[in-house]
């Protein structure tokens, strides 16, 4: 498989990368891990005129906690997220389920977030935990809440001249737990269905914050806001989670395809929501 002709710019700094993108315009694409972009080019479904390689930019690879947040740099690979001690809850649970080991070694968390593939894992996880996408353009840096960042399938609200430089994910201060349950046909496959759950508990053991989001069953990664609202203020229980699962199943709009029927996918959403919330609650209670 041979891609069409393209120019390559190797940026040494964020400033250079952003400038190159401004020069290249619509036909420019940033290259980090390249685990989605390069196959798309080889299959000739993507034809960028210019690739702007950001891999040599220093200082973009960190995964660290600062000011109550987990900060993930644009060059942090999925495999590094898997290995990191700084992660928590649903982030830690989801990391090993992203693609396969080969893709995780090269692919980046920020690249996956920016790609906005509705079958991608990270955007659901971030919708559940909450996160800001940090973008840099010619006029400086800005933070975009993840719910406002995702614009549609494969589209974000990122400006044409902006580069995602990192993610800022709030770290819960009290007891918390999370889960990411993913049904995939084999390692490396996109999710057939996946459910991200995030729960925080107050001193009484009641749920003080809840996040629930679905992968691969809607046109975009979808936050189940009514289920989250239902959960907050309640004591964790099997009945409560079953009720939340019904709301999640109702929020899913799956389609029949080669992976399975819509009815079955909705059933998996129901089951994985119940199981995911139970796992999150158990983790929170033990934390």
């Amino acid at each position, binding site marked *: *498989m041979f891609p069409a*002709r393209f120019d390559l710019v190797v940026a040494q700094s964020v400033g250079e990368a952003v400038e190159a993108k401004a020069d290249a315009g619509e036909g420019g694409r940033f290259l980090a891990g390249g685990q989605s972009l390069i196959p798309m080019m080889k299959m000739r479904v993507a034809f960028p005129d210019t690739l702007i390689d950001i891999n040599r930019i220093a200082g973009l690879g960190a995964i660290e906690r600062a000011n109550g947040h987990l900060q993930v740099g644009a060059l942090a690979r999925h495999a590094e997220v898997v290995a990191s001690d700084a992660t928590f809850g649903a982030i830690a649970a989801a990391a090993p389920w992203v693609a*396969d080991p080969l893709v995780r070694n090269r692919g980046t968390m920020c690249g996956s977030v920016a790609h906005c593939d509705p079958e991608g894992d990270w955007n659901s996880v971030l919708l559940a935990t909450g996160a800001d996408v940090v973008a840099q353009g010619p006029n400086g840096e800005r933070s975009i809440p993840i719910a406002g960042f995702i614009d549609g399938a494969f589209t974000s609200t990122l400006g044409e001249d902006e580069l995602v430089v990192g993610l800022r994910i709030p770290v819960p201060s009290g007891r918390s737990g999370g889960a990411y349950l993913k049904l995939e*046909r084999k390692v490396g496959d996109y999710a057939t269905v996946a459910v991200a759950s995030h729960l925080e508990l107050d001193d009484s053991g009641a749920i003080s914050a809840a996040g629930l989001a679905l992968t691969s069953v809607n046109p975009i990664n979808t936050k189940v806001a009514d289920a989250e609202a239902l959960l907050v203020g309640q004591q964790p229980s099997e009945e409560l989670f079953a009720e939340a699962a019904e709301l999640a199943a109702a929020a899913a709009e799956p389609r029949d395809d080669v992976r*399975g029927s819509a009815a*079955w996918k909705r059933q998996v959403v129901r089951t994985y929501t119940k199981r995911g919330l139970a796992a999150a609650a158990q983790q929170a209670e033990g934390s």
Partner: protein
Amino acid sequence: MAAPTTPAEIGGIGHSVQRKEDARLIEGQGNFLDDIDLPSTLHMAILRSPLAHARINGIDSSAATALDGVLAVVTGDLMDQHGLAWMPTLSGDTQAVLATDKVRYQGQEVAAVIATDPYIATDALEHIEVDYEELPPITTPQQSLEEGAALIRDEKEGQTDNLAYTWETGDQGATEEAFAQADRVVTLETHYPRSHPAPLETCGIVADVNSVTGQATIYMTSQAPHAHRTLFAMVAGLPEQNIRIVSPDIGGGFGNKVPIYPGYVVATAASLLIGQPVKWVESRTENLISTGFARDYYMKGELAVTDEGRILGLRVNMLSDQGAFYSDAQPTQFRAGLFHVVTGSYDFGAAHIDCKGAFTNKAPGGVAYRCSFRITEASYLIERLVQNAAYEVGIDPAEMRLRNFIQPEQFPYETATGFVYDSGDYPTALRTALDEVGYEDLRREQAEARAEGRLIGIGIAHFTEAVGAGPSRTYDIAGLKMIDSAELRVHPTGKAILKLGVKTQGQGHETTFAQIVAEVLGIPANDIKVEHGDTDHTPYGLGTYASRSTPVGGAATAVVARKLADKSKKIAAHLLEAADEDIELASGVFSVAGSPDRSVTIQDVALAAYTNLPEGMEYGLEDVTYYDPPNLTYPYGSYIVVVEVDPDTGVWQVQRMVALDDCGVRINPMIVEGQICGGLTEGFAMSAMQWITFDDDGNCIGANFMDYLVPTAWETPRFELLATEVPSPHHPIGAKGVGESATVGSPAAFVNAVIDALAHLGVRNIDMPVLPDRVWAAIDEAS
């Protein structure tokens, strides 16, 4: 298992000699097709139809031809001028090389660009304008055979419908009689879905035709280089002495590299016309959408049984989806391969098999993906049927099989469809596997689990294969008898070279065939070089597929080694000044009967063959054998799978997989086990996740490894391997061939296990792949 008769340093039969080929392959020193880089090589890219069915009103290649670096755009019209727009298939049909009139499936070859590099060739494809007039696509064989369905093969003289073939065997009258006596008839209708061998290395060619001498050196990913040479000569009209096919290291074949594909023909024609080497290496998508698929059988099986669980007869109706051209690679006499081995491991007198195939707007092929000509489909059907019959009669599925097995003393056993099984002990095999898995305890656990709402299933498959085609009286492909050959040359220093008509694609021939020679002559296996794949330098043969290398090529190797052993004994007698008949050979030492201290080695004899011979004997120590097997060989096995099904999602997990194989004598037990693990993995893949399917417009779903799933180590279950060893009575070393047993036998075991978990709900069938949504739907429907 019989103990080896040679010491480890000789490494004859029964030693797990390390694979000689691995060092080179692991260290990146293999030589695959794409590694071949001749001076002035041009590169070919193929334009393929985006539509499943359309008339071609015109092709404008002028813009593509005008691009820098493009030498030519080859179309069907140009091929037609040389009589090569169509080519014969291995099943007596014709297949378009480049489409002239219509495209008949998505991915069909329409034009080819020859350019100075592969990037330019690919770029140029986007500049070829094809004027397609869309026609309604036919995507199922049922639809295809309906009254009034559009005629797919309108170019074929006398073809008035979409029927590709019909074929019938067995005794209809006797079968009807058996059914009349039955207490009940157990019916199973199931689809063995279309799959693809998907070798890691795709297909490719470097065609190098010398315009002055006419010498055509064709490097090609070929499982059957000699047969391909002859077919090239017949189809292209090239003199056969001028054709040399070189099949280099092959990264997996599994049947996919048996046919001749249009790309090979176009590349060779282009090299002939341009006078430079032309290279074409398929992309993954090209391989998956256009080259030989496998299976796609819609089967209805009916088993006549008594209330005691005794099988009286079998009736099978089968409809195959052939795609646009009937191009199965199979022996001429058999229109649905060896599907009639569907009577399986059971002793009953009557069977009737009625097969037909239909053309559809899908890729042609019908290769046997790691199976001996449609045996996989047959084995799957009978093992699913027998399992279901046990539920209907109300006896245990293991007991059902034990009551109906062909007994050890019945061999050689002639089946109701005419196979003569050579040897076996089925009850011992199944009982050994049942003991290993702890069958009775498992049945108890299953009952306890059910009471708790958990679903555990135990699936059994006891398969019998028919491999090693085959005897010349019955088996030929395109008229070429399915014999095979070995040429053995022992050098003066006692080292040897063995040349084979068969061709490895990873099976380990360079090791195992050397071990056969080591066993007979006592030359260490590591002192024997095995050469294959180059038709100028190896004797004729039909190639490696259908588990035929060991049964046919391995037999030839044993026979040629024995010929040299006979000559060697005479030389030894001369050196030892003894009578020929007093010489005994063991592990490379020739000694005089009764005086073991009087001896010479095979190395002494080899030197003498070129230096010191008895009066009147011809110099040298070499010979060639062409082996015509007296019968097929019949490997078998008992597989047992334990699964747990999640009732909420339909997801099933394999808890245990016990696989007992009997492939007769094992030349290299380690390699045999490797073959079995690979085959079990592929069998698991087909049962759980792997299929090529199409939407209603005929678009192929499964055109890359995102959609066509090949399991990794993560999802592949752990296998527990067992063996028994009943030798083949007619094979020179008692071996039967094992490359395909596990792919043939295992899918039914996996599927039966899932069905067994749901059997109490009344579930009797879920088509492969047994996807979780199908399982969940089956549970939902039943309850």
